[in-house]
Every structure is written in structure tokens, then in C-alpha cells.
């Protein structure tokens, strides 16, 4: 049964059983996706939930006889707009994770209460409206949905359509103006970068590689310092900010201790009580790294002035 026929069947005011089943399945997916968008902590998860909601809505459009809009929804919304969102999430990065600290006291509960009240009002309004006779799109779609839309767009709505062109051009130019950066000074050469590194003296050599003296050499495993503690600078700052560092040093330290005690047993020695190792320097957390980067940046700006 084509969507046109489905919509035509709806002229009586009730839908077919098939459409009812489809609606309830899609409604659960759409509402679940919407709640996920609002409640997920990470922006990437929100974006994926929203994409699910949009796909469910696209099928709803098609079931209601809006075949063209359903396809446009999939191509433009889930295809283009959501990819743009994911692109920006990637650009802005993990440091944009939402803080759970409330700046206004009780704001979250007040907002949820407002939302609830608004929803109750909206749904009560729809329930009070007399919307029991649905004409259905059978007649309007008789010459094809796309043909019908095209006829309207290029006759009655042609002015709006042309203005849309101006809007899209403005948006494209706006995006270019907002994201374009004119380079006002020359890019620092390799020599200048090296000189600056020596002058600052924070880290003259290149950063140490991850996994040195650890059990693996994977990128998410920090290298070990001589006393067995981890050197967090060896891991990529993005992984550090995400908290995706795997620390295998405890395992290695425990095994080394076992080996030492076995040797001591064999030789009949008594081991001195082992002191617990503490990190010789404060572990570089994401926040500290950001502060360091910020300090370096302000210094740089000061130098330029």
C-alpha cells in the first residue's frame, strides 16, 4: 500500500491498523531519542539520539503522505545538519563537556517544572480542539506528491522560494565571515619555535612517547617513570581530558614485588618494608594542562604586543 493510499484511507478519521502500529513504535523511538538528546551528558551521544528521532519523524512524514518531505528530512536533517553538528562537536572537542554545577540555584527544577506545565497546556489545548474529521491527502496527492508540491512552490509560493535563495546566500557568507581568520603575523618558523622552547625551558625536548617501560606501547597507556609511577605527559591531551588513560603500572609494580619477594625467599634475605611510591610530581590533569596552555597563550599575546 503506497503512502498516498494510506493517507487516502485516513479520510474517515481513523488510520489503518498498520499505521497505528507503526505510529506507536515510531513514537516510542522519537520520544526516547528526544529524552536522550536532553539528558545525555556528552554532546556526541545527544547528536546520535537526535538523529534517531529525526529518522523516526521522517517515516512519520512518509506515512502521512508527505513523501518528498520524508526524503528531504533524511537527506537534509540526518544527512547534512547532523553531520554539521558532529563536525562542530569534533572541532570544539571534549573540553566542552557540560558541567553539572548549577549557577542559578534550583534553576534545573524550575526549568523542568516550566516544561511540564507548558506540555500540559499544549496537550490540553490539542485535546480540546475538534479535530475529528481528517480530509486526508488522497485528492491533493492524486497527481503525485512531488508534482503537487512543485506546482505550489513555483506558483503561489514562488516569492518565498526566491527569498529563501537570498537567505541561504546570506547564511553561507555569514558562516564564512564568522569563521575566517586573517593571519596578521607570519607563522613562526621552526627555528623560532625551537628558540622559544629553550627560552621558556618548560619542556625543551620533544614529549616522551607513551608506553615506555609500561607493559604495552598503546597510545592510551602512559609511560612509566623510574620509580614505577606514570608520566601523564606521555599521553595525548585529548585522551587525558576524556579520562581514557589505561594505567597498567599497578599490575607491573605488584609483579615486581612478587619477583623480589621470591628472590629474597630463595636467598634467605629479609626484605625491608616497602614504601609506597608516590608520584614525584603532581599528575598533570586536564584542567592543569589547559591552564598551562592558557598561560603560554597569554604570554605569547603579550610578546606580540
Amino acid at each position, binding site marked *: 500500500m503506497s503512502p498516498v493510499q494510506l493517507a487516502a484511507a*485516513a479520510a474517515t478519521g*481513523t488510520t489503518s491498523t498498520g499505521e497505528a502500529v507503526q*505510529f506507536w513504535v515510531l513514537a516510542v523511538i*522519537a*520520544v526516547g531519542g*528526544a529524552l536522550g*538528546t*536532553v539528558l545525555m551528558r556528552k*554532546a556526541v551521544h*545527544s*547528536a546520535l539520539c*537526535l538523529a534517531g*528521532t529525526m529518522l523516526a*519523524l521522517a517515516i*512519520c*512524514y512518509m506515512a*502521512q503522505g*508527505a513523501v518528498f*518531505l520524508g526524503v*528531504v*528530512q533524511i537527506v*537534509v*536533517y540526518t544527512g*547534512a*545538519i547532523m553531520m*554539521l*553538528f558532529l563536525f*562542530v562537536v569534533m572541532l*570544539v572537542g571534549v*573540553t*566542552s*563537556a*557540560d*558541567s553539572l554545577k548549577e549557577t542559578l540555584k534550583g534553576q534545573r527544577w524550575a*526549568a*523542568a517544572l516550566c*516544561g511540564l506545565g*507548558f*506540555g500540559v497546556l*499544549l*496537550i490540553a489545548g490539542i485535546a480540546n480542539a475538534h*479535530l*475529528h474529521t*481528517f480530509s486526508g*491527502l488522497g*485528492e*491533493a496527492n492524486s497527481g503525485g506528491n512531488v508534482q503537487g*508540491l512543485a506546482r*505550489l512552490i513555483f506558483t503561489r509560493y514562488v516569492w*518565498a522560494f526566491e527569498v*529563501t535563495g537570498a*537567505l541561504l546566500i*546570506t*547564511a*553561507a557568507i*555569514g*558562516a564564512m565571515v*564568522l*569563521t575566517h581568520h586573517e593571519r596578521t603575523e607570519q607563522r613562526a618558523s621552526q627555528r623560532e619555535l625551537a628558540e622559544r622552547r629553550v627560552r621558556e625551558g618548560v619542556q625543551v625536548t620533544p614529549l616522551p612517547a607513551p608506553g615506555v617501560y609500561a607493559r604495552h606501547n598503546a597510545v592510551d597507556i602512559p609511560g612509566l617513570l623510574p620509580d614505577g609511577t606514570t608520566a601523564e605527559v606521555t599521553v595525548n591531551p585529548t585522551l587525558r581530558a576524556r579520562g581514557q588513560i589505561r594505567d597498567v603500572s599497578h599490575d607491573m609494580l605488584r609483579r615486581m614485588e612478587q619477583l623480589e619477594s621470591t628472590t629474597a625467599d630463595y636467598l634467605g634475605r629479609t626484605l625491608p618494608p616497602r614504601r609506597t611510591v608516590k608520584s614525584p610530581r603532581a599528575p598533570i590533569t586536564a584542567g592543569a594542562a589547559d591552564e598551562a596552555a*592558557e598561560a603560554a597563550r597569554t604570554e605569547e599575546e603579550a610578546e606580540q604586543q
Partner: protein
Amino acid sequence: MNPVNYLYLSALLFTIGASGVLIRRNAIVLFMCVELMLNAANLALVTFSRLHGNLDGQIIAFFTMVVAAAEVVVGLAIIVSIFRTRHSASVDDTNLMKL
């Protein structure tokens, strides 16, 4: 099932989106919630089109999609340029004009 259920779904999605705009503070997630509200409005327009038996509702939903696309392009460009200068995508940190 009465097709009016599509309108209830649309109202529910719009409410969830509006609450999200009030609750969340990450600018990107805020934008996603606004998109959710626009989608809910589109669903209502498509349902109204079916209710009245003509295609004008679908035309308006189509224009809404075009405007939403333009809005997202400019909005995300603003978010990226704010992130470049302030190193944060939280709407709470954009408070230079505050006394």
C-alpha cells in the same frame, strides 16, 4: 487510531526540546534542542496538511527546513568563533557584558 495522535507526539517533542533549552548549558546541545523543536513543529504542519487535505502545510514545513538549515550554519559558526576566543562552549561563560 485517530491521526490527532501525531499532534500529541509533536507537542511532546516540542516540550522536551523546550525543557532541554532551559536545562542544558552546552551551546551545541542547546542548538540540538532547538532543532528538535523545529522538527516537532514540522510534524504538526504535516499533520495539519493531512487534516485539511491540501499541500500548503507541507510547503511551510519545507520552508521551515530551509530556514533551519541556514540557522544551523550561522549558529554553529558563531559557536566555533566563540569557542576560539573563550575556549568554552558553555553559554554560562559568555558573560563579558555582565556587570
